[in-house]
């Protein structure tokens, strides 16, 4: 980790109570800052919050939002909610996986794209829904998937 990274990390620790109860919040802040949970950051978290490293690691793997690996510039999320499912989310995902050559949860080698599955983004009226970073795409048709991803 670079010096700047360490400064960012210190800032996160200073913004939260330095006790075991802050674990999840701190991990979320780290993920937001670095887009994933770097190992060194987890080790530092264990030390500062006085939580065994194993518990930090356990929490990092339990919650679906955390990633232990660097993620791509564009995070493509496919909603797997019920409404999206019955309107063909599986096929959207297939197109995406074959288009990008990676499986859900993986990142392309050039760190450009990551595919993630989300349970339900609460935009069921627009099913099937796909998100590219924060941008929602509703009523996605499977032959348009890659066009949406490659946009911008």
């Amino acid at each position, binding site marked *: 980790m670079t010096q700047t990274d360490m400064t960012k990390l210190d800032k996160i620790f200073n913004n939260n109570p330095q006790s075991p109860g802050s674990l999840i919040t701190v991990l979320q802040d780290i993920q937001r800052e670095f887009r994933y949970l770097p190992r060194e950051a987890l080790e530092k978290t264990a030390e500062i919050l006085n939580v*065994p490293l194993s518990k930090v690691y356990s929490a990092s793997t339990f919650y679906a939002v955390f990633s232990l690996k660097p993620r791509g510039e564009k995070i493509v999320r496919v909603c797997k909610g019920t409404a999206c499912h019955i309107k063909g989310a599986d096929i959207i995902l297939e197109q995406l996986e074959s288009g990008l050559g990676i499986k859900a949860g993986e990142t392309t080698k050039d760190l450009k794209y990551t595919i993630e599955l989300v349970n339900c983004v609460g935009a069921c009226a627009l099913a099937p829904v796909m998100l590219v970073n924060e941008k929602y795409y509703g009523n996605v048709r499977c032959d348009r998937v890659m066009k949406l991803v490659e946009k911008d």
Partner: protein
Amino acid sequence: MVNITINGKVVRATEGEMLLDVIRREGINIPTLCQHDALEPAGNCRLCMVEITRTEWDGWKKYVTSCLYPVEEGLIVSTHTSELHEIRKTILDLLLANSPHSDVLQKMAEEYGLHKTSYEPNLEGDNCIMCYACTRICEVLGKSAISPVMRGHEKVIAPPFGEEPPDCIGCLACAHICPTNVITWTDENLTRTIWKKKFELIACEKCGKATISRDFAEYLIEKRGLPKEYFNTCDDCKRVELAQKMGALVDKAKEVAL
């Protein structure tokens, strides 16, 4: 004190006691996998489920894990109904599906008339039944070197990042407490290996016999304020030492009060 009825017999129990303890005290055999007296009950394996009801429940009954259920006045408990038999059998069946090679599970399942799993067996199963006994005991010890990782069916017990656990002191409590003997270790010469981490075993100053790991001894010394020199020799040599000391006293006093 409270009165409860177990399989038709009225039994007295202390308030706050867990049902399982009372049931076992009555000599009733209930299988468990995640229960251990050194651990707080967790309710992971669900084998200790019993049926409870009360007169005022009007025939309504429910199934609870007895390891976690505190006794209450007037509770009516059944420990071996056909439904409970089915529950325990199904749980063992499920465990066996995931760990078809475990002799512990095979033996338990046999008792329920189950010779092989009803499901497609996972031939690569590692026998871990996710009872958390290992992680719980490590937490009691004050180390928490290992933990459950991931969730759901993908869950495994592992050290952080799957590498040598920095907090492990090589005490083997996890390996010994494991009901299905999944956690392996080796002691070769004076080196212990567990969770891929190597530990130096203390060699007896006198005879060279290996005792516990140095890290464990140091932890005990620090945590419990024990004198360091207690750990220098093995139990055999320490007994001889005691005999010699007593002998020396005898020569003076002829009689010794132990």
